[in-house]
């Protein structure tokens, strides 16, 4: 079977308020970074002529927002397609494009600027239907709190364990030059930070962030043109759960388990705990780290609390980037997860490089309380 290589990755440093740059300029920085690393051109015959972008119209406050940024994606007069879901799916598109034989190299770039809107919560409120959901103020934060409460009950998650997740995230973030929230915090600070939406407190939630990420993918044949250290994207799967919260069991992890099953099957993985030694989960809220690790199969169902006390996250090299808790924006959260995995497997993660990592899993989610999950597998 054909293999898909990730040749290079470029990350814009995440910040809480990039007021001084258009998002187009953020994407241009990422593009130039990839070009510097790989010599990528957009020559119609010999370069890359297929581009997958990733952005959200509501956060950009533009209809079909990709049309206003194709110049900085190299997409002028070339093929362009947009992934409006979380960006990990843009990598899935690119993978399909290469596996199908349609193109042998694809440039993927996504951005999200949460600071542009007056309120991130108002943007995610628009994800809900105007009749039932919006009037009662549903947004991704307060819907996550419902799930957090139910999950803490199910998996015996204590306030101390939740705080440990955040403290560890900040420790790793301090070594990641692309992370946003890098200041160290202590258990007590987390446990007594102001309540946003019980049981979620301020330090349990990812900070408002702006960022952009770029990837160059190629077929195995072409990869050597761009890099000596390709990372292989070997598995991909996603799964969509019910839109209405009332139709879902908030703690079953159904969609995540399905997405993982599909990705692992494609990668030929039977036992993920034996195969993978690197994991990046999209933990917008602290409770999600153990919960998604249960869904991915690294932690037994209902044992999330104990898993933290037993140093499960350290055992599997979970979120060495600092994770979402260190501040990546929604929409490109999955691209930042994949970027970290790729850097680690290439051996270019610098100060936070783990030793002997060979296989990594990236997970992302969009929709309130994990409606939609995406899982991708990467191998060195």
């Amino acid at each position, binding site marked *: 079977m054909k293999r898909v290589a990730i040749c290079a990755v470029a990350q814009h440093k995440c910040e809480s308020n990039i007021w001084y740059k258009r998002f187009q300029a953020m994407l241009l920085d990422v593009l130039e970074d990839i070009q510097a690393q790989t010599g990528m*051109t957009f020559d119609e015959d010999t370069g890359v002529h297929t581009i997958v972008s990733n952005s959200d119209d509501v956060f950009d406050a533009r209809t079909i927002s990709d049309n206003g940024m194709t110049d*900085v994606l190299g997409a002028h007069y070339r093929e362009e397609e947009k992934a409006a879901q979380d960006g990990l799916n843009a990598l899935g598109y690119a993978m399909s494009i290469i596996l199908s034989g349609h193109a042998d190299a694809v440039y993927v770039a996504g951005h999200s600027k949460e600071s542009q809107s007056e309120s991130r919560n*108002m943007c995610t409120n628009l994800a809900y239907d105007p009749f039932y959901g919006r009037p009662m103020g549903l947004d991704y934060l307060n819907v996550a709190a419902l799930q957090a409460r139910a999950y803490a009950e199910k998996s015996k998650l204590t306030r101390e364990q939740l705080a440990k997740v955040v403290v560890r995230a900040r420790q790793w973030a301090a070594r990641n030059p692309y992370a946003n929230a890098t200041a160290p915090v202590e258990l007590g600070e987390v446990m007594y930070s102001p309540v946003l939406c019980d049981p979620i407190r301020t330090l349990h939630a990812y900070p408002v962030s702006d960022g952009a990420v770029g990837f160059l993918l190629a077929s195995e044949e072409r990869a050597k043109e761009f890099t000596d250290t390709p990372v292989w994207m070997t598995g991909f799967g996603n799964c969509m759960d019910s839109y209405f919260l009332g139709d879902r069991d908030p703690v079953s992890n159904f969609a995540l388990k399905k997405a993982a099953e599909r990705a692992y099957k494609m990668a030929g993985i039977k036992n993920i705990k034996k195969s993978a030694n690197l994991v990046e989960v999209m933990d917008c809220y602290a409770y999600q780290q153990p919960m998604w690790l249960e869904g991915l199969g690294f932690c037994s169902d209902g044992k999330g609390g104990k898993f933290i006390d037993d140093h499960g996250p350290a055992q599997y090299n979970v979120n060495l980037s600092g994770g979402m808790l260190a501040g990546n924006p929604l929409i490109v959260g999955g691209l930042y997860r994949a970027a970290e995995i790729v850097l680690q497997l290439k051996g270019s993660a610098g100060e936070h490089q783990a030793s002997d990592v060979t296989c990594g899993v990236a997970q992302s989610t969009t929709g309130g309380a994990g409606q939609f999950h995406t899982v991708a597998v990467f191998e060195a």
Partner: protein
Amino acid sequence: MAEYFGAAVADIFNTMERRFIPEGTKGVDTVIGYNVSGEGGGYWRVTIKDGTIKVEKLDAAPTGCTVVLNAKAETFVGVTLGKMDAGEALSSGNLKVDGDITVLITVLPKAFNKFTPIVKARTIVESMKERFRLDKAEGVTMKLGYDLAGEGGGKWTIAVKDKTCTLKEGLDSDCSVVLKMTAQTFVDLNTGKLDGATAFTSGQVKIDGDIGAAGNSAKLFAKFDTGEEKAKGEELISLKCLPTINQRYATGPVMGKWFAGLKEKKFYATRCPSCGRVQTPPREICADCRVRSEEFVEVGPNATVTIVDLVYYASPDPLTGKIRETPYAAVFMVMDGAGKDQSVSHFLNPKDFSRIKPGLKVRPVWAKERTGNYEDLLCFEIDD
């Protein structure tokens, strides 16, 4: 009184207090002025404050209003009744709004039950031909007279013969029966507000001639449709709302250079280091060459027109919420010193609408106060 679509302008204002929905205007505090021109028009002011309403007829143009609606009488009635499209009326200039247009969109639909024209006796009589029931007319020959007194009254003869129904003004001498009443009683009977038997026994209706024929005549005609049922009974509900999330768009150092330049009455473009083209407004990258453009050059202030379009439909300016005056001209032009195919657009001075054409030179018209935004430039005009 002048009527349009079966209703007078005054009818709309006179029924406002009756149609008002106090629960729909909790917390609302707004004053809406109306300047309705043409026959039947006039000035009104409607004050809505936290579940209360005051409707005033004025002698002069309304002042102190949150918003003033200016319209021709026909347009005002047509739009109110839904017979004319509000968007088209705005575009054609027959309807103009001064002030906060969002009040009209957000407050009015919740404040009032729908206006339906006040039913006139003549309307009911004239609809009898349409309401004539062929299936009940077999073998019926009769002449039915109406003698309706008072405002809106008149005399009519309805003749039924050989399964046809004819209507004419005036009373024939050979009517089978003549019904005499006031026009208002007639309207009330036909709109279900007054019971027939009661009207007769109380003497409000006088029957001159064949009483049997009067009774038979009722079943010859279908019930008059007031249209009120339709107005009340909407089965499909749609929700109107205006979702708003304030945005702060960054211009960055490149797009921002354009706006900073406007403050000083200067125009800046970027020059591509590879192909050398000069682009306005400036941008971070030359899309053709895929290289960053970092060199700024000054262009203009005059420009050459490449293409012009006149826009007739009305649309609000997203930055201010105000409706632009229509028609307006969008003129595309190449600034002096910019690349051949690199045109920018702005408004054209309305005085030049008839003379503008591609190739002409235009110059900028600057605002007195300039703060670094789109409105620093009022428009361009022919440079002669």
